[in-house]
């Protein structure tokens, strides 16, 4: 194949664009797609302070490198989830990468902040690991951005992530989730006028125009040393299964993912607006963070605090009785 731009030897094909690129022009292409998303969706301005959530994987590190290269004021944020050697290697990759690009990095640990790891959380709550992990990441990312006074929280969600989420939400008709699916989630405040407190930081996804294969190719071409191994707790994960299904459709019919997501954003997402405005935000009685009141008279407690309380309660329960070994008599 030949590069669409210079007709030189191509190293990567992007079938949904009916194009192939040499290394240099592919890097230009990816940066252009990110810049286009930032502008088109009004994600942030050059003077704003960005907190970039980084996991050590290809997407978040590639994104951080691109934003840093475009001259934005970026700080990385890494949350240690306590998933054994996988988390240790991820933290090492992120720390080395931050040093390479000369950008500041904030590191926090779930274990230090809240007294549990993701595997412990899954075991104590009986829920699938990805559910508790996602809840804790969202909470900690938001908290770190608010405490650090950042204007915007930037995540490495890509086209495949967004397509899989949309696919899952459509399969189950999760109306409130469909109402919230967008490349930009604006900040939310509690209170009015000068007493208003920012409780949810603005969140943006500048990789929304790039498939996972495209961010991975960018990372390889730029020599970004990302963690290739998959999280050991992801086995059987629904999101992963949905991505595989959509990728098979994409292989047979290039452009399917893009049409599905951007068709939704252009033609359908606004039809869910009234769902979104249904439940007003109130302050969580425990942490002060945002939540919604489900039933009148209830103390409002956010999902994060409910989960944390559940973990504490399960730890207080006596361990199940040990089965005694039968003793032989005589």
């Amino acid at each position, binding site marked *: *194949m030949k590069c669409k731009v210079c007709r030189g030897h*191509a*190293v*990567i*094909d992007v*079938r949904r664009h009916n194009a*192939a690129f040499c*290394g240099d022009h592919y890097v230009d292409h990816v940066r252009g797609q990110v810049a286009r998303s930032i502008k088109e969706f009004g994600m942030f301005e050059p003077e704003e302070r960005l907190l970039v959530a980084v996991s050590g*994987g*290809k*997407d978040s590190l590639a994104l951080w490198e691109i934003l840093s290269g475009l001259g934005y004021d970026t700080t990385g944020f890494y949350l240690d989830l306590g998933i054994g050697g996988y988390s240790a290697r991820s933290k090492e990759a992120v720390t080395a990468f931050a040093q390479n690009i000369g950008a500041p990095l904030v590191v926090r640990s779930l274990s230090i902040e809240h007294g549990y790891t993701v595997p412990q959380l899954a075991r104590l709550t009986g829920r699938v690991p*990805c*559910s508790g*992990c*996602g*809840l804790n*990441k969202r909470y900690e990312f938001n908290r770190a951005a608010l405490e650090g006074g950042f204007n915007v929280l930037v995540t490495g*969600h890509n086209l*495949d*992530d967004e397509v899989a*989420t949309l696919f899952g939400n459509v399969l189950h008709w999760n109306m409130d989730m469909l109402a919230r699916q967008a490349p930009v989630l604006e900040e939310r405040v509690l209170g009015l006028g000068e007493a208003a407190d920012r409780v949810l930081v603005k969140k943006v996804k500048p990789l929304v125009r790039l*498939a*996972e*294969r495209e*961010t*991975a*190719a960018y990372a*390889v*071409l730029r020599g970004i040393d990302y963690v*290739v*191994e*998959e*999280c050991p707790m*992801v086995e059987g*994960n629904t*999101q*992963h299964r949905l*991505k*595989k299904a959509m*990728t*098979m459709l*994409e*292989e047979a019919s290039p452009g399917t993912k893009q049409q599905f997501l951007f068709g939704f954003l252009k033609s359908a997402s606004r039809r869910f607006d009234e769902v979104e405005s249904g439940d007003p935000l109130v302050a969580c009685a425990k942490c002060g963070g945002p939540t919604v009141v489900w039933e009148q008279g209830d103390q409002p407690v956010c999902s994060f605090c409910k989960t944390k309380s559940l973990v504490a309660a399960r730890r207080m329960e006596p361990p199940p009785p040990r089965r005694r070994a039968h003793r032989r008599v005589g």
Partner: protein
Amino acid sequence: MKVKLRNPDRVVDVDGPRTVYDMLRTLDIVPEAVLVIRDATLLTRDENLADTDEIEVRPVLSGGAQ
């Protein structure tokens, strides 16, 4: 050729010569779900692979929570 696969890491033998696309289909791998790398260089699906090549097939689809 020696083909390195990931998650878990392992190496399988595939007869060459054949194209990247043929090699992936032989291994029942969806081309859109991977990158193919030879000597630290990315390969498009029409590239020819020799019987003596050492190839890495790197998956790109990650799972996990949103």
